[in-house]
């Protein structure tokens, strides 16, 4: 915008460097004229602070970067043909007009505004144009990539949700999480999701949730609507806030055909709250539980199989020495049988040989013995006569010796002594008493004569001493 060049003629007094002083009223009127000469433009923004006087409607038109005070004659507003009450806080409108200035007066305050001569509700095209401009700007700043670089847990335990309390999106999100088999903790941060107050509150809710350390993902969701209804989610400040959060944000705003700016800056953009639930919990918990059981079984089978295979191998190795021993034992038995058979064959052969030799030896011995017998027979015959003569002589000599012995024996026979008148002292038992002391000790004895026995006893005589020739 060019600086206003207003000429008031030659100044009455020279100032330091500036022209003037001018009479303010004239300056104000000149200013009004200068402003009204500025080119007329179209402005788009959200209506706030609507109020009416008898002749005019006043409001502000604003967006995230700034605002302009606006005024519109009521007859111009009526010509715009808006539905009753359409010009209200929160609506997006496009206005046509230009700069204006009310110079005021002696008692009236001056004022600047944008004099709107036409107004219409902002259409999809208008919003889309604004959206594309913002999109280009944020993309150029790299804000679309920040969230997408965050790590997203496949199994978050706590999830934050920003949505309208009582909205259908809440129910759909819960149903989606239920289908996932997820039973963690949901932290709800309810906020308005439509009108000019929505964006700051949504941004605040997101910041509060992200400040909680246990929250691992945040879902922002609302149902479908026109782009104007969803415009809060195109708010530049909100989208910049989302881009800078440390927690991944999953947006599910509107329906599949709707595209808001928060979808671009979020980590994930989903078409429905149900899809947002699946994106927030990428893991199907039911299937994951089955998969963990499968892997646990595979591990058990792996361990058991490896150990069993090695146990079988070890068993085979352990049986190896026994098999080798058995093999050697079999060989040994075979050799033993072979040796025994060979030995028996050898013995048989040797026996046969020995029998042949023995037969020869025996035959020779027999022949030799026969020869000896024949020779002995001859010798016997020859010595027979000599033996007969010698035998007779020997018999005769032994008979003579026997007779001599009989004579000598008889000469020593005690009976022969008794026959000559002697007696033999004996005990009653017939044992001979060979001395006086034996007789004295026996007290009773008998005397045997050749013709009979007489009993006797000793008579003690102290004076004559023991023994003596006493008779009864």
């Amino acid at each position, binding site marked *: 915008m060019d600086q206003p060049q207003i000429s008031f003629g030659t100044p009455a007094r020279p100032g330091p460097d500036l022209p003037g002083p001018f009479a303010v009223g004239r300056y104000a009127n000149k200013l009004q004229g200068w402003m009204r000469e500025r080119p007329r433009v179209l402005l788009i923004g959200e209506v706030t602070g609507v109020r009416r006087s008898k002749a005019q409607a006043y409001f502000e038109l604003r967006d995230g970067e700034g605002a302009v005070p606006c005024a519109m004659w009521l007859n111009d507003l009526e010509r715009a043909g808006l539905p009753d009450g359409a010009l209200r806080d929160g609506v997006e409108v496009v206005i046509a007009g230009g700069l204006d200035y009310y110079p005021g007066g002696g008692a009236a305050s001056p004022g600047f505004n944008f004099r709107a001569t036409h107004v219409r509700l902002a259409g999809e095209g208008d919003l889309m144009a604004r959206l594309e401009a913002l999109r280009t700007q944020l993309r150029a700043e790299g804000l679309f990539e920040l969230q997408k670089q965050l790590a997203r847990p496949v*199994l978050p*335990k706590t999830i*934050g949700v920003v949505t309208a309390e009582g909205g259908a999106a809440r129910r759909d999100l819960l149903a989606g999480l239920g289908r996932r088999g997820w039973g963690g903790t*949901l932290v709800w941060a309810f906020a308005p999701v439509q009108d000019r107050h929505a964006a700051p509150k949504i941004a605040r809710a997101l910041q509060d949730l992200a400040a909680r350390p246990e929250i691992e993902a945040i879902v922002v969701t609302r149902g479908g609507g026109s782009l104007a209804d969803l415009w809060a989610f195109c708010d530049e400040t909100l989208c910049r806030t989302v881009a800078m959060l440390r927690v991944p944000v999953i947006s599910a705003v509107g329906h599949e055909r709707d595209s808001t700016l928060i979808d671009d800056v979020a980590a994930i953009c989903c078409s429905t709250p149900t899809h947002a639930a699946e994106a927030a919990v990428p893991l199907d*918990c039911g299937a994951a539980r089955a998969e963990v059981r499968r*892997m646990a079984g595979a*591990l058990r089978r792996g361990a058991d199989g*490896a150990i069993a295979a090695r146990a079988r*191998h070890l068993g085979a190795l352990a049986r190896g020495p026994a098999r080798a021993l058995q093999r050697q034992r079999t060989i040994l038995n075979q050799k033993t049988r072979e040796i025994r058979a060979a030995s028996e064959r050898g013995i048989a052969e040797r026996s046969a040989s020995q029998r042949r030799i023995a037969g020869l030896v025996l035959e020779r011995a027999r022949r030799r013995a026969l020869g000896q017998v024949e020779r002995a027979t001859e010798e016997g015959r020859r010595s027979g006569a000599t033996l007969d003569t010698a035998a007779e002589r020997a018999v005769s000599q032994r008979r003579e010796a026997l007779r001599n012995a009989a004579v000598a024996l008889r000469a020593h026979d005690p009976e022969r002594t008794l026959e000559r008148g002697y007696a033999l002292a004996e005990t009653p038992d017939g044992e001979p008493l060979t001395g006086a002391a034996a007789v004295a000790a026996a007290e009773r004895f008998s005397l045997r004569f050749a013709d009979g026995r007489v009993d006797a006893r000793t008579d003690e005589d102290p004076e004559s001493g023991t023994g003596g020739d006493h008779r009864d």
Partner: protein
Amino acid sequence: MKIPSPGPEEITVTDGSPASYESAVERLEEIIDRLDSGQAGLRETLDLCKEGKGLVDYCAGELDAVGEGLKELRLDDLAAKLDSSAGAGG
């Protein structure tokens, strides 16, 4: 029967808890593939099974943590609870 000797692609047994559920599952798949290949030696097999059991326990614990039923909290209530507990503690 042929007992395999450890292959050149023997994988190293790791210690410590996994960084995340997905890393635990990825490691488990790696372990099971190695065991299924039949190339792991006995010591490696035993070590891998021990590590795998720990990973299965970890994964089961993570699933149990989100398997006890959905709990719903309001951020406002959560903040109020924290404020009251902080006040009681102070």
